[in-house]
């Protein structure tokens, strides 16, 4: 479904992605973990061309995209083509980014109407169905600022789903939430995974990664250090770097747990 081959990316002199290769199959859920600054977001943003890659090839749905070589010639996708790919690959952000001037329903229907050309009636029906699914049917007419963070993030997921995407990219979607609101968002994502949505999930929620993902990828310093089935990677990490990271996460969680129970 999504395939990254030897992707390199620089921000100025800073080499942020180093020969990153990753394949995500259809209906697969891949969680990406790693310390902050390791390039997780950048990798995700390269998949829908929010960041342009320096070198390497991205293939989506069997089709090389954005900039690639074909018959020895460099091909650069037009803006229209890039937009069409983005419409097929959804993205959910840490900071929700709902449109504050639109109601919840309008947030979900704006792109289906204006990008996919659906009728307002059809788009609204789909939106209401999705709101039902994320448990927010009663908020259809509310504005984003009237919702809690967890509710806003569930609307953002519904907004992505309304495009009927082939895959969704999640970038630390629970990191900005109060701890008691994390669960409701993870539940929605777990349901999506169960339905067979293709998902790439950058997360610090190790529980989610362990229980829901088909594969966990550990990134550090712009490289994919290790990847594998969740129980393998969590219980028997092969690399020193992975072990260090998991240990530090474990300690932090324990401290937080201790702080919470005091």
């Amino acid at each position: 479904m999504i395939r990254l081959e030897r992707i390199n990316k620089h921000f100025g002199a800073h080499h942020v992605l180093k020969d990153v290769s990753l394949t995500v199959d259809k209906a697969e859920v891949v969680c990406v973990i790693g310390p902050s600054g390791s390039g997780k977001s950048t990798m995700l943003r390269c998949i829908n061309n929010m960041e342009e890659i320096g070198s390497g090839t991205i293939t989506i749905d069997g089709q090389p995209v954005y900039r690639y070589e074909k018959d020895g010639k460099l091909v650069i996708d037009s803006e229209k083509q890039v937009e069409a790919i983005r419409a097929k690959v959804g993205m959910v952000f840490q900071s929700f980014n709902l449109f504050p001037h639109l109601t919840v329903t309008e947030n979900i229907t704006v792109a289906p109407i204006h990008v996919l050309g659906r009728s307002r009636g059809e788009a609204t029906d789909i939106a209401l169905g999705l709101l039902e699914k994320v448990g927010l049917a009663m908020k259809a007419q509310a504005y984003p600022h009237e919702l809690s963070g967890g509710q806003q993030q569930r609307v953002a997921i519904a907004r992505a789903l309304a495009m009927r995407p082939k895959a969704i990219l999640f970038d630390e979607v629970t990191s900005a939430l109060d701890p008691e609101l994390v669960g409701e968002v993870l539940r929605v994502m777990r349901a999506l995974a169960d339905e067979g949505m293709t998902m790439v999930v950058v997360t610090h929620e190790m529980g989610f990664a362990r229980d829901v993902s088909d594969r966990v990828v550990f990134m550090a310093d712009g490289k994919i250090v290790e990847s594998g089935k969740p129980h393998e990677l969590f219980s028997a990490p092969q690399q020193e770097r992975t072990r260090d990271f998991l240990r530090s996460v474990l300690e932090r969680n324990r401290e937080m747990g201790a702080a919470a129970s005091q």
Partner: protein
Amino acid sequence: MLTTFINLFNFEGIGDYFPDLMRGAAISLQLTFCVMLIALPLGLLLALAKIGRSRILRIMASFYIEVVRGTPCLLQLFYIYFVLPAFGIRFDPFMAGVIGLSINYSAYLAEVYRAGIVAIPHGQVEAAKALGMSRRKMLRLIILPQAIRVVVPPLGNYCISLFKDTSLVSIVTVRELIFTGQIISSTNFQYFTVFTIIGAIYLFFSYPAALFVRYLEKRMAIGARRPVVPIAADAVEGTTKP
């Protein structure tokens, strides 16, 4: 004190010149209206050119804005009314006034719009892009509707300041309020009365307008399309803290 002040007023002949003042006020209002009609869309176009992707348009818009803002409005009016005729381009005073003020205000309004647009958080752009929107759709559906809320109050303030600035075009003999006042007072010498009345007329229009802008400012506070309902009442009742 009060009586001396009142004695300064001399309303003799007011019936004769008051209609002239009203005509002057009407012209000031017409000027404001015409100039806003041109400067509001022109300013937006300039702002879009300035944040757009075309380098040439960006440079042209910046040049226009910097030149206009860096020179006095009076000079621009002089230029249009006294210099351009030398090149065979002639306008009547009212037209010259409308053109001069429109040029001036479009440059200032462009900066207001631009500030409003760049104030929109970048996450909005990201979300719109990620949904497959083109730049044009993003601008029309996501950015501008939000920017409008931010810029309406400052635009309103510019509108009020424009109403007062229409006095500048008295310099090119447009018979607005100030010019009319000068004509009247130079014949009846009642400077105090005439210009105090003129001041009152300006205030009569601009003060309510300022109140209206203040009202809009409150209403347009971002994220509050409707007044935010205080959550206290139902948040306290009916919820039990664990």
